[in-house]
Each structure stands twice: as C-alpha cells, then as structure tokens.
C-alpha cells in the first residue's frame, strides 16, 4: 500500500463535512426557537384568550355543537360520500369501458369537476338549478342538495381512485374468473371490485376527510337553524356573542374526527405495505 498517507480529497482549511452538517442543523434549531419566542412575545395573549377562549361561551355551545352541528356535518359528509362513491364507481367503469363515447364522457366529467372549486358547485346546485328548472325540487331538501353537491365533486376524484384500484388487480384474476364461467360483469362485481376496494381503502378514507371539511360549504346554500353544521353553527354563535370562541370549538370538533381518521389511514397504508411483502 503506497497511497495510505495521500488524502482522498485535498484537505481544505476550515470545517469537515460532519462539522458543517451539525452547524447547519444548529442554525435550523436556532431559527425555530427564535421564531417561537418572537411569536410568544409579540402576540397579545390576553386579547387572544379573551377572543378565542371564553370558557362560559364554549360551555354554552354544548350539547348543541355535538348533537346538532357535528351530527349534521357527519350526516352531510356521509351522504355526499355515498353519492360520490356510487357515481364515482359508474364513472370509473365508464372510463374503463370498451365503448368510446363512455370513456370520453367520463373523462370530460372528471376534468370538469376536478377543475372547479367545490364552492361553485354548491352555488350552482343552490341557485342555478332552482332557477333553471322552476318547480323541480331536489329530493331530501338541504340534505339532498348537499349530498348531490358534495357527491358531484367527490365522484370525480373517486372515479380516478377506483379506476386505478381496478387496474391494480392482477390480470390473472379476471382470467381465472372468466375461465370459471363468470360473465365480465359478474367477475367485476364478485372478484375484481372487492379486491380493488382493499387497495383503495386508504385513498378513499382520505377523500372522506376532504369531504368532511368541504361540508362547511353548506353555508352557501342557506340552511335553517336545524340544518346548521359545525362551521355555520360556530360562525352564527361567534357573531351573536361577538366572540370567536365558537370558531375555536368548531375547529376542535373537526379535528376530533379528522385526526383519528388520518391515523386510521396511516395504519391501513402500513398494513397494505406489509401485505405486499
């Protein structure tokens, strides 16, 4: 060995690579701590607490915030999800169809409804549809309208998810089913779709979380007292009491549902990863 004392790289003056790395990490920590301190010093905590954390106003929201507002939020979300799932399934199958116009139609639907803000869909359902078809009533009143608006938006996303799930099922499964005498439709229903849903359960649950938040757009439809969901409920109370505590409580109620759901999604994803191994 002749080259043992020849350094691999020309030795520069200054820091080694390891020292550089720890210096860079140190700077990041310092910035973080400085930002937290600046925020804590600069914020007016008394006024914040006054505006957002009034215990008696928060107490006065119960039990209605749960029994009415959260219940309605869940109800809107679930009905929108069901509509979206059914519609999304139809669109996904159209997208995979061998009939050209079906594929084309499904593609157009997906592009349009993925490209529009959910808010516009709500306004369209709430305002444009009654104007265009006077006398027609969307069944289910507000609940029906919300289910339809949320469902229309969700269907576009779910259709793509479902399509990907169906395509992720190995080709041999359809071949095995067909060679056992299943018709294409029966094979799809009994063999392919159940497997596809296992694959897409995590992204579908994510979609549920998104819908849960989008249900707040109901407030643009004009709802009765009994139909209020978390956001509307919180906002109404906030203007009544001239205090923002209800907004904070409503926000916590959202997190009460979305954080556990997110946890469930991560668990499912981890499990799916394991199943692949």
């Amino acid at each position, binding site marked *: 060995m002749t080259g043992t004392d020849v350094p691999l790289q020309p030795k520069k003056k200054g820091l080694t690579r390891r020292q550089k790395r720890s210096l860079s990490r140190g700077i990041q920590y310092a910035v973080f701590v400085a930002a937290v301190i600046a925020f804590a010093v600069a914020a007016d905590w008394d006024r914040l607490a006054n505006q957002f954390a009034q215990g008696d106003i928060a107490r006065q929201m119960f039990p209605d915030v749960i029994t009415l507002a959260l219940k309605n939020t869940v109800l809107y979300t679930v009905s929108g999800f069901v509509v979206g799932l059914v519609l999304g399934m139809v669109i996904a199958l159209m997208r995979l169809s061998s009939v050209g116009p079906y594929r084309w139609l499904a593609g157009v639907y997906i592009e349009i409804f993925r490209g529009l803000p959910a808010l516009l869909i709500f306004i369209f359902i709430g305002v444009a549809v009654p104007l265009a078809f006077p006398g027609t009533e969307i069944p289910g009143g507000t609940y029906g309208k919300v289910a339809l608006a949320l469902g229309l938006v969700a269907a576009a996303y779910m259709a793509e998810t479902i399509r990907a799930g169906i395509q992720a099922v190995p080709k*041999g*499964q359809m*071949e095995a089913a067909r060679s056992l005498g299943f018709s294409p439709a029966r094979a799809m229903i009994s063999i392919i779709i159940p497997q596809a849903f296992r694959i897409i359960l995590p992204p579908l649950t994510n979609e549920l979380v998104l819908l849960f938040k989008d249900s707040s757009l109901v407030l643009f439809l004009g709802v009765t007292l009994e139909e209020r969901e978390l956001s509307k409920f919180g906002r109404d109370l906030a203007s009544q009491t001239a205090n923002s505590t209800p907004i904070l409580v409503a926000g916590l109620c959202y997190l009460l549902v979305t954080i556990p759901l997110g946890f469930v999604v991560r668990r499912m994803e981890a499990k799916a990863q394991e199943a692949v191994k």
Partner: protein
Amino acid sequence: MTEKTQTPGARAEIDVRGLHKSFGANEVLRGIDLEIKQGEVVCVIGPSGSGKSTLLRCVNLLEEPSKGQVFVGGAELTDPDVDIDAVRRRIGMVFQQFNLFPHLTVTENLTLPQRRVLGRDKAAAAKVAAENLERVGLSEKASAYPASLSGGQQQRVAIARALAMGPDVMLFDEPTSALDPELVGDVLAVMRMLANEGMTMMVVTHEMTFAREVADRVVFMDGGVIVEDGTPDQVIGNPRHERTRHFLSRLLDPAMAEVEEEDSAP
C-alpha cells in the same frame, strides 16, 4: 385433419382446426390442427415462444383466435353466437400463477364460482367444495387464506376450484413452472390421479417425466406449428425431427446443449 364432421363414438372433446393467432404483426400460431379425444391426456411441449400457452388459451378463448375454429365438447367456441360463459363452465383451467382469489378463503374460492355461475345453493356448493378439497388432500386448509399456503398447496386448491365446477375438460398452463422444485411432486400427483380417473386433459408442461408416464400423446410445438405429435415413446423417446431432439437435449441437460450449439455453429 380432413374430417369436418363430428363422429359419434370416438368423440373429440377438443378439436382445433386451422388455428392462427397473431399479436399485431407477430404471428404466434401458424395453423394448428389438433384433436383430443374424450379421456385422453395430451401434453404440449416446446421451447418458450413456441405458442403452446397461446394455443391452450385459445382453447377456452382467453385469447381470441385470428383465424380457424375451436370446438369443445362439440360446441364451436369460435362461433360468434356461442354463449362463451356456458362453454367455459365445462372447461377447467389451471394457471401457472394459480390465480386464486386472495380476498376469499380456500373454501370460498371453491364455493363462490359454484354459487354465482352454476347457481348452486350454499350447502350444495360447500359439499362439493369439501369433496374436491379432500381429493387434492387439503381438507385441513379449508378456512385458510391463499396467502398462507405454499405454492404447491395453492396450485392444488386451484385445481380443486376448477374441478368443483364439474368440467369435462381440464387445461393446465405450465402448472408447476412457478413452484419450488420440492413442491412440484404434490401437484403432479393430483394431476396423475385426475388422468387415471379418465379426465380429458391438455397440459402445457416442461415436466418430461410426467409427460412420459401420464400422457397418452405428446405434442411438440415450435415456431407456432405442431412439429411432432405421437405417443410419449415416439416424441420424447425417439423424436423424428431435429428440432424436437434439440429441444429435448437442451431441456434434459442444459450444459450439454450449449456445447452442441457451439459445435453446430460454423
């Protein structure tokens, strides 16, 4: 090959006439004529890319033939008006990759097709499933999921699943090629049992010992045509064609074949 009508008595269970199959510009089958009689066991051998799997898949129309006719049990599959699902019920298919339904238990793999396709009730389907699991020696795995079984066990369940439909014909597409060597024997034993029971079988395989001992006929394919068709002793024991000899020598002793190949090259 020339007779175009069904002769009663010596009934042809599978009858392939003038079959061509192309994938785009690639012609995989270039005119296949093959008749398999009731109760006959025919092994199809040949190098990869010879079209043997495509031929098998044409027999239950998993591949659509480009030209020619396929009859199974007297019904023409290539007739556009035929109820293909009804014909397929009479044809069992076993795949190289097993293709069990992973979301169902072993028993459900056997009962679901019976119930959905044949319309059997739950009890009847369960009874047939139990009988067929016993035939392949896997009764104790009835409630297991496919992922927990070995490859050999999965393949035996796949055979039982096909048998539960009561087929007249069984097609095997390289049933042991995806298996670890020590698991091959169990699957071949089940196939041997079926052959002894008089099942009509068409088997694409590389298992020469099985072909020699179990097959009534061996068909050697190369380049999309049938090169040789005869008894195992004729085709494997004493091949007439150079291509068959070459294939067999490579299969039986890959190392020797390489030397031969270099010898024959200029």
